[in-house]
């Protein structure tokens, strides 16, 4: 598939409030494929751009269950099946002694799933991304707030979308080459 030479249209705002309002109008105006960029997390912004399903908790839950099972079954198999050793007459399957490591392995796997699951779902690491082609986007990690309408959106057309974004009173609007 040939890549669209234009990635989208981007507007720059001054404050988190301006961004969240702009995101709301844009979404309500029928634009589906939009994204917003900010230097810190803004509560409610993800919902305004139409993001509702966060899968991170599920990934962490699965990680935790797998970790707990791994921890317990590993100890059971090693102590009671593969090489049973009689230690002070204790049963081979002395489950109370296995709880601590089961707990630690649950935390370990769940924590690793949280970090790597979050990165994978976010598509990171990503060495190249078109939004960085806009020079002013460097301020997105400092004190500016950006809204983008992707060119893949059904409603997107270069002049119409630019006009629409300019109507939201941004500091500037620029086209993003991909």
């Amino acid at each position, binding site marked *: 598939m040939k890549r669209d030479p234009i990635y989208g249209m981007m507007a720059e705002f001054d404050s988190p409030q301006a961004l969240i309002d702009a995101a709301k109008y844009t979404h309500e105006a029928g634009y589906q494929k939009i994204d917003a960029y900010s230097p*810190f997390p803004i509560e409610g912004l993800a919902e305004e751009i139409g993001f509702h399903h966060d899968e991170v908790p599920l990934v962490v839950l699965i990680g935790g269950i797998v970790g707990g099972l791994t921890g317990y079954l590993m100890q059971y198999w090693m102590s009671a099946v593969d090489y049973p050793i009689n230690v002070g007459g204790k049963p081979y399957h002395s489950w109370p002694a296995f709880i601590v490591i089961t707990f630690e392995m649950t935390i370990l796997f769940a924590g690793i799933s949280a970090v790597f699951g979050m990165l994978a779902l976010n598509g990171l690491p990503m060495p190249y991304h078109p939004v960085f082609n806009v020079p002013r986007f460097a301020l997105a990690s400092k004190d500016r707030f950006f809204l983008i309408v992707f060119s893949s959106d059904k409603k997107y057309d270069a002049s119409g979308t630019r006009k629409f974004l300019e109507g939201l009173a941004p500091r500037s609007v620029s086209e993003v080459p991909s």
Partner: protein
Amino acid sequence: MDEQYNTTDAGRAPVTAPVIEPGYTFGTVTEKISAIVLTRPASNGWFIGFGVAFLLTQMMLFAIAYLFLKGIGIWGDTIPIGWGFAIVNFVWWIGIGHAGTLISAILLLLRQSWRNSINRFAEAMTLFAVACAGIFPAIHVGRPWLAYWLFPIPNTMGVWPQFRSPLMWDVFAVSTYATISALFWFIGLIPDLGTLRDRTDNKALKIIYGMFSMGWRGSARHWHRYETAYLLLAGLATPLVLSVHTVVSFDFAIGIVPGWHTTIFPPYFVAGAIYSGFAMVLMLAIPIRKIYGLEDFITERHLQNSAKVMLATGLIVAYGYGIEAFMGWYSGDRYDAFTLWNRLHGPYAVPYYMLLACNIFIPQTLWIRKLRTSPVGLFIISGVILVGMWLERFIIVVVSLSRDFLTSSWGMYYPTRWDWMTYIGTIGMFLAAMFLFLRILPAISIFEMRTLLPEAEVKE
């Protein structure tokens, strides 16, 4: 309400100092913190400090190299005191690390926003403290090249570790703790590495920070998943940090040695860990805020709150000592009673009285507000507490082992120069890592500081 809390009558300091001084914007917060890394030249003081710490690290490596050549005999460890400095220092360092996780995870869950300006370097402190702690058990095993036997790795002998032993639990607890602390620290850094990438003019730095920031661009979807992951990780780290020192205390409590075999150990170890950890946080924060001019971000409020945490955990520790003494009498067990008598009158009585002074009596001065807001005073008291907590572990490990059930197996422990070189060397390693961290990474979380500003507030 507000008026009441802000009165400054009769020369009293305001009851609640702000978390961040007014007048900052997203831009100035970003510039101020990133400038420490990007534009501020390293001072002579930094080079001297790092140089000394680096030399101490070399001394540690030398002591360890000699240990590998000669064996554990160069240390003061003998029978009956087979656990000398190595275990004392291990517990001390691990305990110091705990405050970092408390600040970053537990205070996050409790919505204590003042944590935002100290969590980054407190997490770094955790990481470096755990690294120092990890050295000790590894070099203490006698044949350190076989230390990997501690892990359940398939081997030609076909045997597996003994999972019923608390020492084995400790291996899992500490290695999980190290891993989770490193991950927590790293994901906290990702957005700030993105900021450094966008701020620097240096091409090589841009690439390096860009790589480590993973191409972070601050998308709303990313932030949403990021916050979920961060919160979940905090929720996981909270029981983890409590479990780590609990498991460390099991190393002792499950043994039958008088002075070890007690159920009060887990809570009292955890409180002691947080106690010493906050002391280390203050010992680092007070010079850092002064030298790098960060008094607007690490304010009097942070010092006060940390002092209050120390006061509270210190009282829990005091309660632990009290219960130990009480049980020595109440249990009717003559060995337990003797342990108490021996601590008060035995050959190690002086360290025990020093411990009581450092951990219980001197820190009570923190009830005085003037002292809680005085950086110099807090710095000194924190140092006293760190010494006290080290002595506590010395008393637990050495004094208990030196006088067990049979008089025929009593003994004394005298640390050698190699013990001291290794211990002081790890302090050097810790400080060297801290010095590097301050120059390479933002010592205060930039994006979390932005959320504290009034202009960050939105209404829907």
